[in-house]
């Protein structure tokens, strides 16, 4: 179906189902319950899930397939964002041209950066990309202030009047899709539950599904196999008459364009950009997402992006008072002790939790969350098979 094998098509369907029903799935707790703070089904966070999902999918095409670890991918995201916001400021407030601009600008920049950095591999490649990203950050932060807005970044102001728009004098333009405001939401109240369906989220979700579909096609294509061959053995690659350089460069540009798409969508959702988007920690984050989810797997990067963004937004909101509330039923001394133990891992300390989770995954599940899922599935299936007709030795890894 759609040019995919059955297994991949099923995966695509599952991902499509999850993203389209996300407003329900992410809001399992009633509004008035104490658990409501674990609800992630609000537009802002859902948008971040899918946008960083796109970013991580693209990163995985480079890192997962070729093994080239770029440590500067946030630069492409940032440059895409700048491209998109200028498109909105000057040409049109419609998000489509802005997103296309983001992809193109990021792609051109990736071509230039890749052309230089791919002369080296391994740690030298990583350092080169990191250097480029930090240079871009520094440029955006100070040198190129007229273009990037420097420290304060860029936003759409009342003085902006794009070429194709009919804004009133002094009206601040809003990102839209052929007139539909990105912030338009439809709220559905069922009992104590509140579900929000946001226009921006669904546009980002469709972009993610398209990106995911394209990634599956790339993974299963001859080109994707060549990329895996590069990771596996570059010597054999060149002695088989294949030139690794253009292959890695193409992968680098494709993954840069994915990052640009993510950056463009960020601007479409929230019309502002700042240089911090290109800071090296942002580049590091996408590496964490990919490794946490499962390097080289299809769904892994999306899971990793979801997990990290969930922790960043939900875990960090828990504070001391909330903890005291939770453990109020315990005797005072014990309550204080528990709160003292847990406190460092929540709120601003969420990085600590992320760090521990990351270490556990890397040490015990080198294949990331996807491997965890596979092990659970295998254990369940193994039990069933044992019950029926003895053990079956089919342990082919699924992607």
């Amino acid at each position, binding site marked *: 179906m759609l040019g995919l094998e059955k297994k991949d098509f099923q995966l695509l369907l599952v991902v499509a189902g999850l993203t389209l029903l996300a407003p329900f799935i992410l809001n399992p707790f009633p509004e008035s319950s104490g658990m409501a703070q674990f609800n992630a089904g609000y537009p802002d966070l859902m948008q971040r899930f899918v946008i960083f999902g796109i970013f991580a999918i693209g990163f995985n095409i480079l890192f997962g397939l070729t093994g080239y670890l770029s440590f500067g991918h946030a630069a492409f995201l940032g440059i895409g964002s700048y491209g998109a916001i200028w498109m909105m400021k000057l040409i049109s407030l419609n998000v489509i041209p802005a997103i296309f601009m983001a992809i193109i600008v990021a792609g051109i920049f990736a071509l230039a950066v890749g052309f230089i950095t791919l002369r080296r591999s391994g740690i030298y490649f990583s350092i080169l990309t990191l250097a480029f990203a930090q240079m871009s950050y520094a440029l955006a932060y100070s040198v190129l202030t007229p273009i990037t807005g420097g420290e304060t970044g860029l936003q759409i102001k009342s003085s902006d009047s794009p070429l194709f728009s009919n804004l009133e004098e002094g009206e601040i333009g809003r990102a839209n899709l052929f007139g539909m405001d990105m912030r338009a939401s439809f709220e559905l109240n069922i009992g104590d539950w509140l579900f929000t369906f946001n226009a921006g989220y669904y546009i980002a979700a469709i972009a993610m599904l398209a990106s995911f579909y394209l990634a599956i096609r790339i993974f299963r294509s001859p080109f994707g196999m060549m990329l895996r061959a590069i990771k596996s053995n570059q010597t054999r*690659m060149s002695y088989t008459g294949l030139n690794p350089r253009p292959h890695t460069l193409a992968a680098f540009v494709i993954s840069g364009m994915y990052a640009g798409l993510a950056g463009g969508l960020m601007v479409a959702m929230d019309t502002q950009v700042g240089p911090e988007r290109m800071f090296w920690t942002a580049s590091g984050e996408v590496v964490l997402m990919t490794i946490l989810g499962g390097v080289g797997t299809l769904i892994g990067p999306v899971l990793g992006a979801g997990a990290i963004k969930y922790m960043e937004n939900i875990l960090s909101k828990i504070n001391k008072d909330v903890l005291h509330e939770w453990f109020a039923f315990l005797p005072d001394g014990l309550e204080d002790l528990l709160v003292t133990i847990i406190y460092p891992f929540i709120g601003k300390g969420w990085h600590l939790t992320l760090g521990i989770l990351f270490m556990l995954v890397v040490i015990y599940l080198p294949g990331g969350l996807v491997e965890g899922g596979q092990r659970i599935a295998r254990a369940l299936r193994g039990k069933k098979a044992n019950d029926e007709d003895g053990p079956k030795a089919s342990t082919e890894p699924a992607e």
Partner: protein
Amino acid sequence: MGILEVKDVGKRFGGLQALSDVNLSVKENSVHAIIGPNGAGKSTLLNCLVGKLIPDTGSVMFDGQSVLGRTPHEINQMGISRVFQTPEIFGDLSVMENMMIPCFAKRDGAFSLQAIANMFSEKDVVERAESMLEDMNMADKRHMHAASMSRGDKRRLEIGMCLAQEPRLLLLDEPTAGMARADTNNTIDLLKQISDERDITIAIIEHDMHVVFSLAQRITVLAQGTPLVEDDPENIKGHPKVREAYLGETA
């Protein structure tokens, strides 16, 4: 005029003259062995032929064209395939994928951006890879992880991958090094069969005299970076210079 003509090749690494005045002519459709004691420069010579090293002096012509200054993948596309001392295969890929890659390289050249089509829907490549696997007696292993195979199988796969490109010259660097006797004999049989059935020239570097004398039609003896003698196997066996190079002055 042979298919491969090496003229006056010299290569120096710092203070070590690894090769000097190497002349070699490999006849088309023959099996030519290059032998010599350790450190004789056999591997250096091979590396000069495939573009990994560039000789300081001399020329290397393949089929009338110079290979010097070309990258390994360009030389490979000219029709020279190389089998390594330790099998170089794509360990993370399946056996079938390993075989498909050279078929794609043969069909599409050094680079082609086919990022959308499913690789298994490229019927011509799949068929070629399958028939190559059958030729190599590996059809039953097609789904195996290449890294998990035995050394003999890896060698067989590597040779198959080289043949899938239909090279005119196949270079083998000690193909039986570190192999069990049975695997060695299998490899000899395989190479014999290849040279009998295909339009192919084979140049082989080998330590094992049993392998050399069962395969080679012509032998070049290399010692201290220069060719000592080039002759037919019968004449090499008892050649005093060869015995001297291998066993030392007293022999």
